[in-house]
């Protein structure tokens, strides 16, 4: 009796629960409003230097909160999602939080293609997730410890 080897199918989805597009969109919208208001106030208060300071505030906000133990900005907390290390699990750390902030710019540059990428990516990763090797997951499946 002979057996025929069939290669495994290459069709696959994510390796675990992932935050959906609209959850991430809503979280980014909330964070955008928060950072946007701070940016406007800084610009009105100190002019052009306020724009530069706005970038620093944005960097500090995202790097500190997404790199911290919870991996949650205020927007992500509101939506019950968090940034999670794809390789080892847990927080990504502040250094990668800084990297993720700048990688986000790369995702936005080609008409936000890097953000839309998660719609057809196997692990539902945007470009900035891939660049710092993270995933965005629901807290219900990956609770903050």
């Amino acid at each position, binding site marked *: 009796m002979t057996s025929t080897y069939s290669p495994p199918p*290459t*069709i*696959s*989805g994510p390796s675990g629960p992932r935050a*959906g*597009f*609209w959850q991430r969109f809503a979280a980014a919208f909330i964070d955008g409003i928060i950072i946007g208001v701070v940016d406007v106030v800084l610009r009105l208060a100190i002019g052009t230097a306020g724009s530069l300071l706005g970038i620093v505030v944005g960097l500090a906000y995202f790097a500190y909160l997404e790199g911290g133990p919870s991996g949650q900005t205020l927007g992500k907390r509101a939506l019950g999602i968090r940034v999670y290390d794809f390789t080892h699990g847990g927080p990504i750390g502040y250094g990668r939080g800084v990297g993720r902030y700048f990688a986000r710019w790369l995702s*936005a*540059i*080609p*008409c*936000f*293609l890097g953000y839309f990428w998660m*719609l*057809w*990516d*196997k692990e539902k990763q945007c470009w900035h997730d891939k660049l710092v090797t993270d995933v965005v997951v629901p807290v219900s499946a990956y609770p903050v410890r």
Partner: protein
Amino acid sequence: MTGGSVEVEPRELRSVGAAMLGLAFLLPALPGHPGLPCPLRMLTGIPCPLCGMTTSVEDTVHGHVVGAAAANPAGIALTAVAVALLVTRPARLVLSRLALAAALAGMWAFELHRFGVV
């Protein structure tokens, strides 16, 4: 992107498609007819694969197919896919990564030519 296929959530893609169609109907009616300027083109003068898509999808849903094709032919295809997803409501959706990569490459080549870069 490598070869193979990836299974995506049809419900999520359907909702994004519905939002896209809704915006395409709505945007021309808004004051100032807002669009989405391409950061890559603003920074470097080089268009990206998605340049012209807002115009193309807007023109398609308003029946201006020639204008849509001139801006980015992929907008016509994307509108058709969004409508098909809403009508057929498939339970499973499998996308070919190779086909997606080829589509993006084709779109970019078209836009680079349209803006006289190549």
